[in-house]
């Protein structure tokens, strides 16, 4: 499949879909938060080579914008992911005023995305996650204010004035609430490198990272410039992506199902899904009974079978539009809309978390049972 100029598509380029999607999510957030305005001129650079370069700022801004746009439009994706990341890293090294952990991580992530492949070959991103959490955890572990809880006490009560913390903290002896939160953070940060290092714990690492970063965002309402976006987007490098077409078996004698299929097909820009009516008898090939097929939608991906809500969720998960939409909804929101950002994150977390799956299944079954009533004009397609 040739690479498309459609920015909503991620297939057909030299980069694996999840890695390009990761880079695009970061690029979208960089553009929508108008990060280009922060590109600095040299100011007390870490490397003297940048001192006094008169056109550095305009070069950084130009390369930043051109590479981000070309990346979105699927042009020379590896080169442009590299250039976008390298631009941010040069900006970090050229100005102490611009320097920040979130920018450094974003730059490194894009540079590594440009040279990685999916799966085990994404090891630089895996090691990067381990280094970030190890460094953060170690620094906190050896800091007296983190050991005593003083950091969190001051941060949560005096700085961000979190209402939940302000309500709970006075019920406990002084600094106990702060100490609990500080040590919870230290333990979580020091466990994550191990989770990312051990392959069969990687899923726990992914979820811990997402819950940790989302929890921080929900608690504070801020994205810490690019940190929230980049740390979550990085997880796309580790998730298993379908290696071949996904097969969906649906009820071809149901008007509601036909409409739903049309709707999903419209957004399946990668044409990942192959639709087969259950009446074609294809279920037998996978040992699925006709009774099961008439009760729920079935999806077969890389030999695994998903049904009902889980099938629907899988389709949403493997559609790049989902992640680009979430990125837009959060990063395009004005700075003073923290509750909007919180709501989007909470909805996304619930939808994709295993905790919500039983609720999703019930809702799905309720709709599935009543599908002929929802749209009575049944359309027999076979």
């Amino acid at each position: 499949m040739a690479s498309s100029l459609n920015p909503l598509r991620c297939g057909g380029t030299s980069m694996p879909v999840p890695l390009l999607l990761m880079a695009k999510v970061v690029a979208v957030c960089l553009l929508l938060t108008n990060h280009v305005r922060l590109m600095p001129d040299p100011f007390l650079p870490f490397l003297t080579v940048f001192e006094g370069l008169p056109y550095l700022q305009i070069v950084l801004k130009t390369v930043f914008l051109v590479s981000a746009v070309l990346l979105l439009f699927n042009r020379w994706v590896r080169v442009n992911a590299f250039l976008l990341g390298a631009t941010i890293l040069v900006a970090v090294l050229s100005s102490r005023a611009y320097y920040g952990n979130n920018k450094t991580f974003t730059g490194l992530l894009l540079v590594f995305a440009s040279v990685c492949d999916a799966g085990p070959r994404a090891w630089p991103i895996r090691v990067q996650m381990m280094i970030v959490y190890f460094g953060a955890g170690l620094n906190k572990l050896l800091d007296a204010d983190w050991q005593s809880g003083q950091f969190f006490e001051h941060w949560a009560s005096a700085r961000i004035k979190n209402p939940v913390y302000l309500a709970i903290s006075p019920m406990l002896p002084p600094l106990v609430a702060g100490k609990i939160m500080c040590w919870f953070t230290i333990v979580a940060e020091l466990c994550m490198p191990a989770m990312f290092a051990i392959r069969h714990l990687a899923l726990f690492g992914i979820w811990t990272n997402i819950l940790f970063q989302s929890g921080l965002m929900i608690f504070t309402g801020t994205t810490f410039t690019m940190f929230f976006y980049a740390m979550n987007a990085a997880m796309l490098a580790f998730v298993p992506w379908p290696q071949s077409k996904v097969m969906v078996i649906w009820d071809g004698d149901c008007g509601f199902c036909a409409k739903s299929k049309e709707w999903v097909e419209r957004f399946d820009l990668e044409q990942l899904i192959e639709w087969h009516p259950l009446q074609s008898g294809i279920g037998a090939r996978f040992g699925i009974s006709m009774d099961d097929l008439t009760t729920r939608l079935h999806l077969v991906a890389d030999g695994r079978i998903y049904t009902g809500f889980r099938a629907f969720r899988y389709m949403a998960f493997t559609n790049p539009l989902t992640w680009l939409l979430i990125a837009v909804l959060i990063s395009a929101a004005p700075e003073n809309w923290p509750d909007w950002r919180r709501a989007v994150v909470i909805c996304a977390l619930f939808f994709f978390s295993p905790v919500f799956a039983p609720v999703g299944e019930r809702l799905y079954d309720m709709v599935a049972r009543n599908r002929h009533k929802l749209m009575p004009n049944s359309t027999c397609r076979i």
Partner: protein
Amino acid sequence: MDRLSAVRLLIAVPLLAAQAALIGYARFVPARYFCWAPFDMQTDYTLDVTIGGRRLSAEEIRKRYRRPKRGTDNRSIQNLIDIIQGYEEQYGRADHAEVVMKYRINGKEELEWHRP
């Protein structure tokens, strides 16, 4: 080894190794650059800068150091001290600026830093 794997090694190994070294190095210096210590410290500070007997305005201070006169920094206070020291030594040597910074780390007692 294919070309991409070679490029991956060439780019990733030095960048990752440098970070690992900087995490170790940060244990021996107060500035904590590039050691992944985000939001580990909350420093509330106020800057007063006098040049030739005249106190600089908040706007002048922001232009000079690219930091507000009064604010909160979420990194080591040494980062801000480095910016002030670096500016005065590299760009503002002729001004003989006198700088007083009052600051509190994580809400504890007020401290003061002077230059010169």
